[in-house]
């Protein structure tokens, strides 16, 4: 469905996106994660023919977005950053403008019903709350029943009930073989909704795969070491060096580490023989948030 190959965007010498590659199959919900400035929006904009890549390519249903843009984007709906709306038009009129521009058949009333805005159909957008604008942006993305839906921060400004409705809507779309790629800072939300996640940091793709797979690859261990701050720093360095690529950070005066579940005892032994007084060591269930914070803190 979507194939991204070595996608790179340079601004001068700085790489906003650095050789990012991934592939998404039809019917999947994929979360694109990363801290601010990680290159998420630039990556999405390159997929949508808005920002020209320095190198690499994006294929949608086999068509290159930058060689055959019309063919590639024919079945793509998108909401990029804040929803772009004509403030002096009503919600229904905004959808009509989008449908006319894209040359797709649309039923604004049905779409507004789908995103829970039917009662505000004839209300000017300038009177909408941020959450209502976000819902209308989502309705724009769904115009023409696209096969691939790209959403950048779709839950921003939406109340908790709206987020639950959005989750249901995305699941319903995916069950109808629609493919969804969305970026978000709501990690708990992503964990609940997505089949797969991609994590970008400083322009690079640092992890990708099924959420269960990524979390299953390591257990979370919290370690309390007796001693001063310098001792704690040295212990942290030893944990990071231990076992090659163990992810660890300091959290509330303790070491918070992700490592293979069967290695907990070995790590304890290594720390004790290294001269550290391990006062406490216990396992905790990892979450996507833990995984994300470990990954992006180290880079």
């Amino acid at each position, binding site marked *: 469905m979507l194939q991204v190959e070595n996608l790179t965007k340079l601004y001068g010498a700085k790489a906003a996106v650095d050789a990012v590659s991934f592939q998404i199959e039809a019917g999947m919900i994929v979360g694109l994660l990363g801290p601010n400035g990680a290159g998420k929006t630039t990556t999405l904009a390159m997929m949508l*023919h*808005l920002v020209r890549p320095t190198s690499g390519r994006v294929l949608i249903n086999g068509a290159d977005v930058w060689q055959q843009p019309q063919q590639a984007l024919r079945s793509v709906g998108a909401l990029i950053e804040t929803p772009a709306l004509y403030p002096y038009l009503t919600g229904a009129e905004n959808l009509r403008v989008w449908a*006319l521009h894209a040359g797709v058949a649309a039923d604004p009333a049905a779409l507004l019903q789908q995103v829970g805005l039917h009662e505000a159909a004839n209300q000017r957008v300038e009177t909408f709350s941020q959450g209502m604008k976000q819902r209308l942006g989502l309705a724009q993305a769904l115009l023409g029943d696209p096969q691939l839906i790209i959403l950048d921060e779709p839950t921003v400004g939406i109340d908790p009930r709206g987020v639950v409705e959005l989750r249901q809507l995305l699941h319903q779309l995916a069950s109808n073989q629609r493919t969804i790629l969305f970026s978000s800072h709501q990690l708990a939300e992503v964990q609940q909704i997505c089949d797969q996640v991609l994590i970008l940091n400083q322009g690079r793709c640092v992890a990708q795969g099924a959420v269960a797979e990524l979390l299953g690859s390591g257990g979370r261990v919290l370690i309390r070491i007796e001693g001063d701050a310098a001792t704690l720093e040295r212990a942290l360095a030893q944990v990071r060096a231990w076992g090659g690529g163990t992810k660890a950070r300091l959290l509330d005066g303790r070491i918070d580490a992700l490592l293979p579940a069967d290695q907990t005892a070995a790590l304890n032994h290594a720390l004790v023989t290294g001269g550290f007084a391990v006062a406490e060591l216990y396992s905790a269930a990892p979450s996507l948030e833990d995984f994300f914070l470990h990954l992006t803190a180290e880079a």
Partner: protein
Amino acid sequence: MISAVAAQWLVLRRRPMLKVLLAVYVLLMALQFFAPIGLVRLAPQLESLGAGNALNDATIAALQQTVQLPSAWATIFGQVNGIGGLLLLILAASFVGSDYQWGLSRGLLARDPRRGRYLLAKLLALVLLAGALVLLSLPLGMLCAWSASAALGLPFQSGLAVWPDVLRGALIAWLGLWPYLALATMCGTLGRSAATGIAATLGYWLLEIGLGFISVFQMLGALGQFLYTFSLAQSVGAWTEETRRAFNLELGQTFGQVGVVFPDLLRATLQLLLYTVIFLLLAWWSLRRRDLRA
């Protein structure tokens, strides 16, 4: 393409700025016709106050001619290309520039990436609006002319007997707006915001007006005067002067100006085509080359 134009037309006709500018246009059109009434009525009082023959009979006759149909058609079309053109420039630059400002061009072009089609749809919507402005000006101008003529005690003239000249004048007025719409489209695209687009467009317009002003007083010199005939203003002016001539209201005859030089009609036409093409190519090049970021 038709649906893309329909989308832009919907956006354009609902724009609040359109209503404001339209009200200003109607007001200024009325003022153009009703101001001479005051001047003509004031003339005897000025004379009695010892201001001499401030407004001589020839000037009064010329003023009356500008408000009485059929010669008032030239005044109407002058308003279309003058004030109407200026207000359209402001609207057009804002119409194109605000799409960038509000992220709308990014959103729309993510749905349909054909940037040339998007730009052309915007321009065609503006061209349609210019046509609507010309059509609106006909009954509005007639109403003003009839009212002003009646107020001055001039005999009623419907002005409809010369309808072929009116149609030709309307067509010239409409076509004369096209290059300016292309200019505003270019400025809005290059400026990427309503304010920058309007400022750049008005800057160009004021430069031409300024040159025109000093040209009238023959301050440009022979070479400067000749070079000025290559300007957009003088190219459009060559055609609008034809309209004035058709209604016996050409600039030189009415105001005794001798400094205005226009290119011949063939050169004016070629220049207008060239300006329009250059403006549109620059707009298209800019839109095609640049990234659409927030």
